[in-house]
């Protein structure tokens, strides 16, 4: 199983690069995941807006929010979210926000 080295911690990742233990997430982990998984050298305010929205929903309900809800809360269009996270809201933004991979028909 792959690991992520962050600030002296060794964090377990799934085979697809998602954090295995969501509680280990913090801003440093987000920056590192953004750089290594999404190729994002830095996170802008818009990035953080999406990340914190997803994180807030996840901590409240233990699942990723609907994409519509993220667009509504952040006032960002879905196209803009794809610009921010090239892998998209599920595989990109959720990963950087420290969520497990959303389950689906794949």
């Amino acid at each position, binding site marked *: 199983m792959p690991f992520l080295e962050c600030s002296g911690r060794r964090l377990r990742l799934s085979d697809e690069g998602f954090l295995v233990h969501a509680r280990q997430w913090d801003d440093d982990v987000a920056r590192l995941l953004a750089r290594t998984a999404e190729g994002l050298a830095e996170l802008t305010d818009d990035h953080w807006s999406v990340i914190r929205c997803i994180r807030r929903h996840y901590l409240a309900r233990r699942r990723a929010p609907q*994409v*519509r809800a993220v*667009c509504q809360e952040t006032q960002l*269009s*879905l*196209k803009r979210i*794809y*610009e921010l996270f*090239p892998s*998209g*809201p*599920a*595989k990109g933004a959720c990963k950087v926000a420290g969520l497990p991979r959303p389950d*689906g*028909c*794949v």
Partner: protein
Amino acid sequence: MCSDGRSPTLNLAVPSEVGMIYLDNAATSFPKPQQVYEFMDAFYRKTGVNPGRSGFDLCLVAGELVDETRELLSSLFGATDPSRVVFAANATDALNLAIFGLVGPGDHVVSTRLEHNSVVRPLWTLHEDAGVSVDWVSFDSRGYVDPQEVIGCLRPNTRAVVMNHASNVLGTVQDVAPVGRACRERGVHLILDASQTAGVVPVKLDALGADIICFTGHKGLMGPMGIGGMVVRENVEIRQTRAGGTGVRSAELRHLTDYPYRMEYGTPNLPGIAGLHAALTWLRHVGITEIHAHEMALWQTLRDGLAQLDGVTLHGQDPGQGGRIGVLSFNVDGFEAADVGTLLDVDANIACRTGLHCAPLLHGQLGTHRLHGSVRLSIGPFSNLGHIERAVAAVAEIVAMRRLTESRQA
């Protein structure tokens, strides 16, 4: 298209509570005819008693509805004995009953790479747990299995051919009849998965040479979820893999062997059967042929529209090559299938299905498993030309979005 948004051929109005363009009818048809909702509600409120279990009159009324629904299904599938229409929860449930009840250790089975997991997984389980050998026949570039190739796989110990009538990913209706003829000549059971074709195109036991047709009620048959079943040809005796209450002849400790009790266990899904009854009545009124013609006219428009878009790859969508249903599968260059689905959903309010569609062998053969599957748009009776035009335009926007991103990166 008519000015009020109705389809030009079927003229079915989309209920106002359906607040989206729904193109996921291969997963479940939606909406259902209003009659289905109303009849289910009314029947279950007035007659929601256990059919055939007790002696009071209302129980007999409920039992009559169950019997009538068997008769409607028997007629639909060209069976001669309605008691050989068996209710189950869905097609997967019926396929499990049929496959595990007919195939055992030492047997050989022929199937195809088009199959849904409702066939793949039972056969895989039998392969791993009981040493059953399975030949998985590939499909050609158009999405069709060569019946001669299936026939060529038959061996002396072949117990069954299990194949779907139409692919739930490609929408290609398979040429089953030659396989059925060969199976009957050799005493091999043909188990047909009609999940995508029941209520969409003719599916008849003898015309196709099938011994068992498994169906679900909530797709082309336009009924509710939770009800499906199978039609079993006379003299085909499926081994019981379950046992339980039948409501009749309770003194017998062994589960009954006569149909339909042989394959039915416990209290039936009466509201589901009531909904299916209403749906079958609606289908008779509107006409399966008319619905299919409507859906195929829309499929042609959708297919032609998407085929013109650079960066869109259609899978098995060549027109005029054989039987089809209104199911279209594609990928957009530069996007995983799920992302296209998200963009269609959120930006265009279009519901579709993305991923592997429970058909891993099919996507393995197409190579689309590496893209995490494909995008599937599937048309239903309530789809109209406006829906299709908006879907084509929405995919065109997604293609343009990728181009914009690429040009910025260049």
